[in-house]
């Protein structure tokens, strides 16, 4: 499968999962999305994963323009007992074309779980077909925690109605580059 085919499949699944995909840059669409989360939650705090190498320079600016105060996350035990965090920002190591999943190896999984919104930076060249290829990419020793996120947190426990954001992020977006 070519990189282009994988990308197309990934984007199709992301759309189905209601995951917004923005080009890598300070676009009006990104600003609109950040504003939406800021307003909907009423919170200011954004966690930027410390494991995120080469944080895109425009991101810090976009966050502050939308009124976020960005902070590096603390260790889980130091997290406040009821963290009102609006946004988590992290870099995914891989994407999966089959399911639209985002795979994180180095990121603290709480960054992708506790906040109400999740913004993920992804390299388009890192999109793999499915689980099999992802597991082949993992080198020994295997990562202590491999966490995959496939769309917003959700439940259908009440009359099978889809409810988003039940424990984890309600809004997920991807900044795609490469």
């Amino acid at each position: 499968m070519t990189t282009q085919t994988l990308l197309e499949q990934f984007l199709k699944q992301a759309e189905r999962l209601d995951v917004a995909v923005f080009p890598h840059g300070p676009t009006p669409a990104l600003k609109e999305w950040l504003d939406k989360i800021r307003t909907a939650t009423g919170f200011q705090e954004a966690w930027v994963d410390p494991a995120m190498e080469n944080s895109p320079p425009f991101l810090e600016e976009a966050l502050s323009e939308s009124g976020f105060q960005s902070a590096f996350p603390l260790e889980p035990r130091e997290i406040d007992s009821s963290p009102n965090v609006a946004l988590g920002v992290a870099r995914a190591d891989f994407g999966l074309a089959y399911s639209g999943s985002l795979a994180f190896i180095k990121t603290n999984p709480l960054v992708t779980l506790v906040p109400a919104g999740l913004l993920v930076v992804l390299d388009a060249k890192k999109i793999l077909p499915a689980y099999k290829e992802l597991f082949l990419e993992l080198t020994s020793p295997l990562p202590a925690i491999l966490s995959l996120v496939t769309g917003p947190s959700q439940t259908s426990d009440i009359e099978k109605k889809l409810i988003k954001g039940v424990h984890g992020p309600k809004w997920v977006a991807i900044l795609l580059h490469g």
Partner: protein
Amino acid sequence: MRTRFSLLDTPSPNLQLEANLDNAIAHYFQKRALTLAEIPEYQDLVQRARKIRLDTLNGLPSHLKRFRGVLEGAGVRVIEAKSAEEARRAVFDIAKRHDVKRAVKSKSMLSEEVCLNEFLEESGIEVVETDLGELIVQLAKEKPSHILTPCIHKSQREIAELFSRVFQRDVPDEESAIAELARVFLREKFFSADMGITGVNFGVAETGTLAFVENEGNLRYCALLPRVHVALMGIERIAPDMESLGTLLTVLTLAGTGQRAGAYTTLLSPPEFGRKAPEQDRFFYLILVDNGRSGLLSDPKRRETLACIRCGACLNACVVYRHIGGHAYQAPYMGPIGAILMPGIHPKGTERLGFFSTLCGACREICPVGIDIPGQLLAVREQFFHHAARSPAKGVRYLAFLLASHIGRHPRVVSLARRLVRPMLAIPYIEHVLGWGKARDLPVPASRSFQERFWGDHTDAA
């Protein structure tokens, strides 16, 4: 503490039950059909998954040995529990050792099987269910009625009324309001819990990896936030290698919820995982539960039942389940999988579950690992008759059937018997006295038989 399944305190089904089930299951089939329409290779995946599961079961002791070896080699504490009692005791001992006051728990049918919550709570440890459906049944003091959707028997209105009562505030009949209340309530619990209890979807023999799949994110909280994490895993839930894990994860969500992947899939792998936990002053324990599985494994006719990956699809496909609901089974596992698994791991009081089926085969069609469930049901029935034939009650039963067959040949006597029985069954709560009605309706015979109505109507017409 109640550990006998026949004594589970479950409510009688109400008239709303069938409507609630029909509504939920119709949604499931719609979603599943849409997803599978785009995956033409699905049946090949099912065949591959079936082969993986059956081959794994055939070599289970050596896979388990390898799995344990990798985990223990990395410093992970693995505890073997032969029975439900041992499993409960192991969790309790861990809780005591770490001075646990509150535990948060994600959905785990295995914990239901070993009656863990009741035991911990009677020992003074607060257990909070964190999956939304599980929380709803816990607050209602009920038991799950579906493997994947524990509160499938409840309508939104019933849940809103329950939350209003429990949280002492007016909760609107809106799914988002109910979920928001649960989110706020549980978040505080996650951050204040001393211990997290989870199940395990699969353990990988080759790498010692533990795989967890969910949609809400509550499992991830339970596994990663509290200082102690206890994972309960049935000994049969082994995947030999990572490639097999990929196949099993794929069919699990496709069959269970019609999703290509669960919203959250978490893989914990040694040696890094084993090393990191103590460094961060965190503790992880894996409890490998047998509880009757070895017996099933050693029976070549019944081994296939252990291939189940608990997707819950067979419940949705079963015409019997859809009419009577999960509580009627009076067992932690319900539907077709309950009917074949329970008599295998806990025969006492559950052998009759093999008759909760029309043998139509819809469960076999939908099963993502192609288990021949009707064949297994027949084996359960055979086992039942084999035991019944040796029971001292056999003679009495034989006479009862003989008498019934004689009565059945005389319509007047049948009519008289019906008239005698009818007023008795109309006595309120008689069904509870008889035991049958604890989770089922006991129908009162019609006032006029079909023959009486038929001939009566014809006479009227003439």
